[in-house]
């Protein structure tokens, strides 16, 4: 294999394994936070809390309409200004979570609204309030419909986390870039990087399929 230095991949492996671990940690934390925020925003979107709906719309509008990279910089530079001194790691978690929550809010809203209106009518007919009908009737039924788009969102989040290399978090992409700068082997390491991401995302997809099957 002519001019390729595949040995660099072995050399980089311990660093990239560490980077992969950080990527997983950030993604897991961000996803947990994003799911919680997104679920609440999605529930508000279909609820009778009319005062809270416009802010949610504005939030979703902003998240969808601006690049994740810009959002990451905004969080990273804005939080210290308002007195929140977070480490780069937690800034990254917050930025990713805010980004993802906007999309999850829409997934949850669409999931809840996709349930046949007869279900809410039946819930009202036995005296349930709008909130009870959402929690006890619509949400349980929409969980299974929400799972596949939520998996997409997890995958997107893991891939978006590569942008956190710009705020010098030593995650997977950053770990590869450090070795590239040291050994000047960009192709080999970006190739390896792609494989690392594929492995991580394959594992996540399996988890999701398992969950979806359990919810069936």
């Amino acid at each position, binding site marked *: 294999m002519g001019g390729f230095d595949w040995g660099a991949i072995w050399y980089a492996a311990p660093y990239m394994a560490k980077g992969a671990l950080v990527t997983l940690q950030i993604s897991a934390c961000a996803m947990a936070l994003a799911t919680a925020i997104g679920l609440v925003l999605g529930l508000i979107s279909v609820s*009778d809390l009319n005062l809270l709906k416009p802010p949610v719309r504005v939030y979703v509008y902003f998240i969808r309409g601006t690049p994740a990279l810009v959002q990451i910089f905004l969080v990273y530079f804005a939080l210290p200004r308002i007195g929140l001194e977070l480490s780069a790691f937690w800034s990254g978690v917050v930025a990713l979570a805010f980004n993802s929550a906007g999309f999850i809010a829409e997934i949850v809203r669409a999931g809840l609204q996709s349930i*046949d209106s*007869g*279900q809410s*009518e*039946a*819930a*009202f*007919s*036995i*005296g*349930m*309030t*709008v909130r*009870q009908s959402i929690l*006890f*009737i619509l949400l*349980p*039924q929409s969980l299974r419909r929400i799972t596949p788009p939520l998996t997409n969102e997890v995958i997107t989040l893991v891939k978006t986390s590569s942008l956190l290399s710009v705020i010098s978090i030593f995650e997977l992409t950053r770990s590869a870039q450090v070795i590239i700068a040291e050994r000047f082997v960009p192709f080999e390491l970006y190739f390896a990087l792609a494989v690392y991401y594929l492995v991580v995302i394959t594992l996540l997809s399996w988890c999701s399929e398992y969950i979806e099957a359990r919810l069936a």
Partner: protein
Amino acid sequence: MTAARLNADGGGAPLLSIRRLSKIFDEVPVVDRVDLEMTQGEIVMVIGPSGAGKSTLLRCINRIEVPSEGEVLLEGINMAGEMRNGKLVADPPKAAARKRRRIGMVFQRFNLFAHLTALDNVAIGPHRVLGTKLTDARALAAEQLARVRLSDHVMKRPAQLSGGQQQRVAIARAMAMRPALMLFDEPTSALDPELVGEVLEVIRSLAEGGMTMIVVTHEMQFAREVGTRVLFMDSGRVLLDAPPDGFFASQHARAREFLRRVHAFSAA
């Protein structure tokens, strides 16, 4: 509850009182100035061509649809709100939901909660709405399901039940809330013909038990046998309000025309 007792003692006080109820969609009055008074134990059959406003009338009574005009009083209580200083103040959502408990509804398409077993479909109302302990709510649900002869199917999901069985679960679900009034919105129209009888039997037994009910139906034989009154509706208006025998012998032109079509259809 107290109001119901007052009615029983007071004699003749209406259980349900509807005054000039209208529902207007896009300037079209789907329900047009309907008046109706019902006493305890009355069984009103609502009959009429499709698009007559029968379903919308029912949905306005329990406010799944908000009426455009007019008022609905159940046991003397205005379903829309409270009178304060001579003005009607609309109920906050919680109070509206609380009033709605007193009215049970059975839908054409059953609308059973798809994620719950038959037992929990019936138990969820008493449990979540009335605050009954889950074990007690399930015991009550089992009792209600036994009444509609579904004791062998309590652990099945709606998708595992026939249409007739689903509709009987839906009736048990409504009855578990101990309503003062039951609304049936074409309860057998979505059923295969051989399943209609079992559902009508259950409704008939409720009627014999003294339940006050309004039934929108196309089952003329059933309306005649079980109803104490027949309302004939067309274009949003109640055109006739008569005892069954009076209605089926009526000389009213639109009613005659409707019955002729229904009979031509069932004879075919």
